């Protein structure tokens, strides 16, 4: 009985945990943005404005769920579902503690995450196409170019970690950081991964697919109600995912003194989410071509250099 119940429990708790974290980080973001801008943020609903999530969710659920008559109905429907599922599935391979994790020991875990991120592009692109709206289409096209490009740099920057740990399994990577977190030898890769993570989750300051002041609301211009809510949740779940990935790949996952493993993981993820929000508060959006040329002319050579140096150091250490 136990061998069947335990995985199901892990899966259910992880799914609802991710949902909870995504919902909480919406409120966290609004509060923190307020703090960074010398104002309190939403504080009217419940103690410290904590029930704002419930109010938001009720608003989303009770809004009219409208499919435009000119839209491609079925593609319009599945686009947000793809995006949310891709992020949710990626969390499956992230090991949270030594004993907790849906499929953390999958021997191609990291590749699975990249595959799911690659499928997540479809959500934005199809949303942009099926809305049959020129701004949505522009957003979708920007999303396709930006997310595919930055997935390249994301994958290349992680290769250093993979080489150092000698495995694609995220659990092995975390185990390899018992003595030294990878952020110290792989600091260049970590910075590239962070930047690519922002672009991949199309968060500010790289939120070109949305770009409110340029192209309406971008790919979700025509979305309303809970379908928009799914995009919204997927974005914050994406932030949580990329924080969790940086934690496991570069910051030693659950490793840390004194405190229990889960707490260390949660603290690191929380601080990274706060850092993402700080970036949003601090930085303006660059121009679209600036983003692309920055990616291909700066990040790509840097990540290749990172791979080269890491490989050379590993070979020298091995004494070949």
């Amino acid at each position: 009985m136990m061998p069947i119940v335990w995985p199901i429990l892990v899966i259910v708790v992880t799914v609802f945990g991710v949902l909870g974290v995504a919902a909480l980080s919406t409120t966290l973001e609004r509060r923190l943005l307020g703090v960074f801008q010398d104002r309190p943020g939403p504080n009217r609903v419940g103690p410290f404005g904590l029930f704002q999530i419930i109010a938001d969710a009720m608003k989303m659920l009770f809004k009219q769920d409208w499919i435009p008559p000119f839209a491609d109905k079925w593609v319009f429907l599945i686009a947000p579902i793809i995006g949310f599922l891709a992020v949710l599935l990626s969390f499956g391979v992230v090991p949270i503690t030594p004993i907790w994790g849906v499929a953390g020991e999958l021997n191609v875990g990291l590749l699975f995450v990249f595959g799911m991120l690659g499928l997540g592009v479809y959500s934005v692109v199809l949303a942009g196409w099926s809305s049959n709206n020129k701004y949505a289409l522009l957003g979708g096209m920007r999303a396709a170019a930006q997310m595919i490009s930055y997935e390249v740099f994301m994958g290349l920057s992680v290769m250093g970690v993979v080489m150092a740990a000698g495995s694609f399994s995220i659990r092995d990577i975390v185990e390899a950081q018992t003595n030294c977190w990878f952020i110290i030898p792989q600091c260049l890769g970590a910075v590239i991964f962070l930047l690519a993570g922002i672009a991949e989750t199309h968060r500010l300051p790289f939120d070109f697919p949305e770009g409110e002041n340029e192209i309406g609301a971008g790919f979700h211009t025509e979305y309303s109600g809970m379908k928009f809510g799914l995009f919204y949740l997927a974005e914050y779940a994406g932030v949580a995912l990329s924080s969790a990935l940086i934690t496991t790949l570069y910051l030693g996952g659950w490793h840390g003194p004194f405190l229990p493993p889960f707490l260390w993981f949660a603290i690191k993820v929380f601080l990274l989410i706060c850092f993402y929000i700080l970036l949003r508060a601090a930085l303006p959006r660059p121009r679209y071509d600036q983003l692309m040329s920055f990616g291909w002319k700066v990040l790509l050579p840097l990540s290749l250099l990172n791979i080269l140096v890491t490989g050379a150091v590993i070979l020298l250490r091995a004494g070949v």
Partner: protein
Amino acid sequence: MNIMLELYGLIAIGATALAITRTIPVHGLLYLVVSLLALACMFEQLGAPFAAMLEIIVYAGAIMVLFVFVVMMINLGQPDQLREKGWFAGGAWIGPSVISILLMGLLVYGLNHNTMAVGTVGAVIGPKAVGLTLYGPYILTVELSSFLLLAGLVSAYHIGRRIGGNS
């Protein structure tokens, strides 16, 4: 017999058939993506998770997105759908389907009578084994394909340069 493998195969065949018969190009591409995902699942079932993941990342995640991108850009509308419908109306599909069925028959015959094709279901081939094979016996192929990619990169850079514009 691995029942999951059979199911994935059925999904792949169905999705491919739908990909051919859809009149809206984006729908067809989506079915093609589903078919590729089913193929990836089959690879995983056959014990090649690395190949499965590469299938998802490269084919479903990058190449098909570019296909969708291009189809979005060229903005096919109602007249194109009608034209596609016209293509299905006549006997135009008889020839290709006869040839495909012939090919499938040959394939089935060959698979059944080939003693070399030993099912290796169960033996998992990890990333390390793939890498050792690629950079061991197949190093020439890797180098050749990297040449090809380099040529593609250079020509793309050449085509994409600005002509006479100010930076």
